[in-house]
């Protein structure tokens, strides 16, 4: 029983306003260009004397960005305060670590199980979380974080490796190639994971699923009464976020041939949080930008040692309070308003003449 438009002839048939639509068309040129640059970059960098160091930094950037994006999907877009991200990263890491180390599997095979188990774990803690609100979710997910940490430290020998984590995990078998060559292969694997994750997350955000997620965040009762099944939508979101976080965990275990229980430390949590908060809470580019800025900052501030965590904590606190949309969007808004070019004519927010006198 649709609502025929027989009601008063609407003048010309109004069209969907591209600008207002929740779907985005990106120019293939830019994406292609970036990919190309990514592919070529390691070959150039390796030539420089500090090149290897830069490639290592880029690998770190790729993995941190994947985890930050996945967490932002849940917290920024979904409005669900989950602190389980680091634990899911660890689940992925331990899964592939144990399979490769204790059962002797080929890392390329075992890594596939990392995201699977991480997703399973996420659905396990996701189910109870869906019935809870705000504060309780913080507690439940922090409890999961603590449980995983305690299990990793005091668990059975082949898991805990004596309390400090798995120390001798086989790296990716890339054949006997020179050091630079090996690094470049590792770089490509990391870039591959990053690109797939970024594409999937981009596709999710600008799709009905993404719209449903933000609708639930803005007003759950209203969203549910317009046909959105909150459990299904949020579970899918949890699964996608955990999948890539687990994958990144798996990769890092083989990249650094081991995973230590220090992964559970609070400083890891603050790094990720800083990336999202600095880059822009609940935006697509935010966590990626944030990852770059935070890693850059880490390197620049490495000289001041422990002061880095002190500075980072205060910076994150200040940004969260005084620039809630994130440092980057705020800077850009200041730039647009004061220094930027004349803004294009205001959107048609004023009354629509065809409607008849307001």
């Amino acid at each position, binding site marked *: 029983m649709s609502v025929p438009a027989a009601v008063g002839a609407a003048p010309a048939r109004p069209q969907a306003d591209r600008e207002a639509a929740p779907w985005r068309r990106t120019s293939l040129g830019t994406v292609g260009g970036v990919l190309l640059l990514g592919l070529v970059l390691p070959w150039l960098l390796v030539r420089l004397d500090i090149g290897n160091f830069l490639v290592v930094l880029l690998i770190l950037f790729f993995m941190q960005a994947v985890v930050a994006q996945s967490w932002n999907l849940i917290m920024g877009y979904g409005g669900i305060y989950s602190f389980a991200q680091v634990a899911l990263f660890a689940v992925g890491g331990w899964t592939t670590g144990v399979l490769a180390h204790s059962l002797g599997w080929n890392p390329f095979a075992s890594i596939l199980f990392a995201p699977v188990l991480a997703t399973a774990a996420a659905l396990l803690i996701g189910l109870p979380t869906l019935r*809870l609100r705000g504060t309780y979710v913080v507690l439940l997910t922090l*409890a999961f974080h603590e449980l995983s940490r305690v299990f990793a430290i005091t668990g059975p020998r082949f898991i805990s490796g004596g309390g400090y984590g798995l120390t001798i995990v086989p790296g990716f078998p890339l054949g006997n190639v020179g050091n630079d060559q090996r690094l470049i292969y590792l770089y490509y694997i990391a870039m591959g994971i990053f690109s797939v994750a970024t594409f999937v997350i981009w596709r999710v955000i600008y799709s009905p699923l993404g719209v449903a997620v933000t609708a639930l965040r803005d007003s759950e009762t209203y969203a549910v009464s317009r046909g959105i099944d909150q459990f299904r939508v949020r579970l899918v979101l949890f699964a996608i976020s955990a999948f890539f976080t687990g994958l990144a965990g798996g990769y890092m275990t083989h990249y650094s041939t081991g995973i230590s229980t220090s992964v559970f430390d609070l400083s890891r949590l603050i790094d990720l949080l800083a990336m999202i908060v600095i880059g822009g*809470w609940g935006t697509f580019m935010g966590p990626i930008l944030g990852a770059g800025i935070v890693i850059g900052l880490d390197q620049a501030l490495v000289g001041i040692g422990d002061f880095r*965590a002190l500075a980072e*904590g205060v910076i994150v*606190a200040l940004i969260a*309070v*005084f620039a809630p949309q994130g440092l980057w969007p705020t800077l850009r808004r200041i730039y647009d308003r004061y220094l930027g070019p004349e803004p294009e004519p205001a959107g048609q927010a004023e009354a629509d003449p065809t409607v008849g006198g307001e």
Partner: protein
Amino acid sequence: MYNTQLVQAVWGGILFGSVYGLMALGLTLVWGAVRLLNLAHGAIFIVGAYTAYWVVSTLHLPILAALPVGVVVAATFAGVMHVLFIRPVIGKTGFDNATLVATIGLSISVSAAALIIFNPEYKVVPPVLGGSHNMVGVQITNQGLLVVATSLALFALVYLFLTYSRQGMAIRAVSQQRDAASLMSIPVVRTYGVVIAISGALAGLAGVLLSPFFFLNPSSGFNPMIQALIVTIFGGLGSVRGALVAGFVLGIFESFVEVYLGVAWALPGVFLLIILMLIVRPNGLFGIGEVRRL
């Protein structure tokens, strides 16, 4: 032999219960009044503890002098946190998000600062009361008795303060109807500051009293924070009575698990309990959901 285990479990339960209660009281007060989840509560705990340690070790003053200093410094830290990070977002839409992230950031900075100033080794904070008694093979320390007494006394004090004093009633009024409180000439923002400072003092006191029980290090604020969070939510957000009862329920549960199942299972046991509780009764013992007031 049999009843030594039982006595150990019961005494452990009472002691843990008081410890958890003491930690959760401040957190419950702030949630009830300001609807703020103060994840920096654990950090303020070690601010109090390290201050007391510094007074004793550097100024060579007795712990009895260090106790009040620790409490005051912790309360001041909480006050400054209120002015810089809480007040600017009161009443704003992004309040929950901003304060959650800000308090986490601060707790990281505090443990980093402790690392820099006091380096990572474990520090020993002397107990206020030395000595202990032996009952059926179970060692009951005077400090333990002091903690139990202080915890119960503070709960009573806070309850009386909230129920009968002018400032206490004002805090409850603000937590229930902010606009109406302003119309009664109650300065809402300053009342928030008072509550946060009081909760800071409570956390500081807990820090000084409880440090002798475990070794003080820069990250020893995290566990009490988690325990306080569990007790607060288990007791029903914002319910002072709930926090007291929940503290003892969880304390006794953990103590019995520890005595009969082994220490390794204590913490996981508590977490499993809380996860089950959140699923079955998400609003806690006394809570009626997120809306619970003092």
